[in-house]
């Protein structure tokens, strides 16, 4: 029972982990990307489009589908889709120095609009009775798990029973953490986010770092959308079903104090908190909503505690949200 709850919490937490790892990369370059919900949504629908086209091309027959292609095509589509969103964001905020908050919020609205537009169009193409697209065949490939996990009892269920996107999320978070803290690229990136003028004076290409961090961060975040569609909902896309996961991912960045390793545990905790209402008996519709509030309550508490402790390492990058222009004094 407990193992099942933990497994479920991890499953729910993975989109958040992708989202917040991506956002951490972006924020480390000094850009607060509030477009993450939209980017994750686009990441999801891009994967759906890729999967849909591949399934169509194979005549909707699992026999004709190649496992590698069935995974690779939606995966790449998702990465490209969300990267394009990141490119829009970085062009506006880095090159044109537009206000980051406004741009991010606009991008969220835009991304959800795009997602719903293509989602609606695909639903129409399938002539389905239901307002959703069903991609169970592709989802089947994404949901492959280690065959021997079931034989290992609770250990297997907690640690080995997951889909590859789950392990990938943890690996990506660990890699990002390593890059940020142990490599020259990471040092340069952190310098850009903390004090772009200093980084510039040290000969670091600030614009390049900002662009790359935003686009790579967006690609990582977009995978969260892909995991949601292909694994969590078993390949069923319905418009607006993604909910507030994007905002939770941004909250998780604050909760994790801009550390990807913290985000791993934070995402599992958030996953558990999001799900806790299902395990408590006798909750009405109204009281369930109160429980769904928990991740935000935890985030606010973390903010309050870290603000009170005033430890500089726990603060956001110093120039987060500020545009950088060399000639400005």
């Amino acid at each position, binding site marked *: 029972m407990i193992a099942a709850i933990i497994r479920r919490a991890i499953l729910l937490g993975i989109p958040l982990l992708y989202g917040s790892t991506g956002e951490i990369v972006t924020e480390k370059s000094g850009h607060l990307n509030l477009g993450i919900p939209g980017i994750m949504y686009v990441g999801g629908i891009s994967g759906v489009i890729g999967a849909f086209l591949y399934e169509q091309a194979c005549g909707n027959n699992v026999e004709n589908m190649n496992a590698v292609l069935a995974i690779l095509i939606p995966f790449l589509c998702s990465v490209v889709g969300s990267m394009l969103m990141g490119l829009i964001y970085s062009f506006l905020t880095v090159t044109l120095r537009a206000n980051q908050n406004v741009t991010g919020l606009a991008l969220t609205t835009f991304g959800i609009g795009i997602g719903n537009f293509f989602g609606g169009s695909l639903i129409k193409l399938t002539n389905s009775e239901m307002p959703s697209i069903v991609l169970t065949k592709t989802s089947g490939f994404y949901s492959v798990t280690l065959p021997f996990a079931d034989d290992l009892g609770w250990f297997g269920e907690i640690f080995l029973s997951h889909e590859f996107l789950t392990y990938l999320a943890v690996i990506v978070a660990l890699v990002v953490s390593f890059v940020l803290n142990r490599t*020259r690229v990471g040092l340069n990136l952190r310098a850009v986010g903390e004090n772009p003028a*200093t980084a510039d*004076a*040290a000969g*670091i290409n600030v614009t390049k770092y900002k662009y790359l961090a935003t686009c790579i961060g967006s690609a990582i975040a977009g995978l969260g959308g892909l995991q949601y569609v292909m694994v969590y909902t078993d390949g069923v896309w319905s418009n607006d079903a993604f909910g507030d996961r994007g905002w939770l991912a941004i909250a998780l960045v604050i909760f994790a104090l801009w550390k990807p390793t913290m985000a791993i545990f934070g995402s599992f905790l958030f996953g558990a908190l999001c799900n806790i209402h299902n395990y408590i008996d006798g909750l009405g519709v109204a009281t369930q909503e109160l429980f769904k509030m928990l991740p935000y309550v935890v985030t606010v508490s973390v903010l309050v505690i870290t603000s009170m402790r005033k430890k500089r390492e726990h603060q956001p990058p110093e120039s987060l949200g500020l545009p950088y222009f060399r000639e400005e004094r």
Partner: protein
Amino acid sequence: MPTAAIELKNITKTFGSVVANKDVCLTVNRGEILSILGENGSGKTTLMNMISGIYFPDEGQIFINGEEATIASPKDAFDYKIGMIHQHFKLVDVFTAAENIVLGINDGKYNLKRSTGEIRKICEKYGFELDLSKKVYTMSVSEKQTVEIVKVLYRGADILILDEPTAVLTPQETQKLFAVLRRMRDTGKAIIIITHKLHEVLSLSDRVAVLRKGEYVGTVETATTNESELTEMMVGHKVALNIERAEPVDPKPRLEVHHINCSNREGVKMLDDVSFTANAGEILGIAGIAGSGQRELLEAIAGLQKVDSGAVLYSNPKTGKMDNLTTKTPLQIRELGVRLSFVPEDRLGMGLVGNMDIVDNMMLRSYRKGKSMFLERKGPKDLAEHIIEELEVVTPSAATPVRRLSGGNVQKVLVGREIAASPTVLMAAYPVRGLDINSSYTIYNLLNEQKACGVAVIFVGEDLDVLLELCDRIMVIGSGRITGVVDGRTATKEQIGLLMTKTDGGEPNA
């Protein structure tokens, strides 16, 4: 004959119509410390910025090690092994010293441990005391400066430029820095230090180059010169400006400052036991090197700066009583008629809101007077139009955002607004900075009019010629202390120049 590390030939740099450097020729040799001496705005920093690649000279040549060099960016300067330590440190606060030092250098595989070892060697060689794993935000100013110096050395610089390195240091820290600089000189590095402290020049450098108003005055051997010769080279001869100056009418003490002390946020003392009296119907000039505490002094009077100890007494002409301003809020002080038309480095910074139009900026001072819940626009509008007409502000209309006006017009708007409130004390800091001759005279006339009306005017200026012609008395401030008060009618530039560079109270030669 030592080898010349850098030779500048006829360097000229202009910003718009302002000539920052004109025909400057300089030579720095290896194993030598050269001081560059000059007043504020004499072009010292501009010149050094050209060597370090921040600006590009309009005319002239730079030779490095005897070969002509083009330095178009900080990276070029770095390639020529030139390292500049700016007055404002370029460090990442949450990084450790070591991380800051290796930032941006690509020397093979990233290995902080190995780099730390190399940095430690440099520290030992020159005698720096530095904890490399310490985070910058926990460091003192002097430690940060050490990080900056080690940073340029780690990058292999053998020509070092330090822009006013002692401005932020305590005397002990300064001595330590000088010891390190001498050691670097002895290892054959060329060092240029920008300063305006005469005693440092004399104790540290081998030669001194003097700049005055962008022009190169000359270079002298430190061993053969003395303080008064350098002062004369620095301030030059008096220039007549013909600013009218009426005899003060019935001067009475209006503002008495008693022994005030102030510290800035880092806890560095900015004002040290400052006492003086400002009289009504008189212009009191304040002269001093930039950053000697002028800003803090004015802000302390206006109630914007916390005073650690001491009192600011205001003789209220209405009640005839003395009020202690240090116990009042800025708003109460304003109501008494103490007006600060502060023109800080950034003109719009403290007085006006750039995106608001002239009328709205007038309203910033009067919105509390309205009786209904809606804003009263009529009065401010009339005032704005009055100022535009009286002071000949060049603007398309009163509804133009202040940000779009030229510097002189912005200043006219600001000073005009403060004068319109019929103040009893008017403080103006650098009100003519960046203005052309005509606008400057308009401002001088405004100040003179206020003086004639019996206002106590405090004028912080940087041009000694102006101070000498405009002010009745000139108070000189150096490192937060009053180093002297002279009569504006009889004082000489050399006298003020010496007082400005005198730092340790009575001893100029400390």
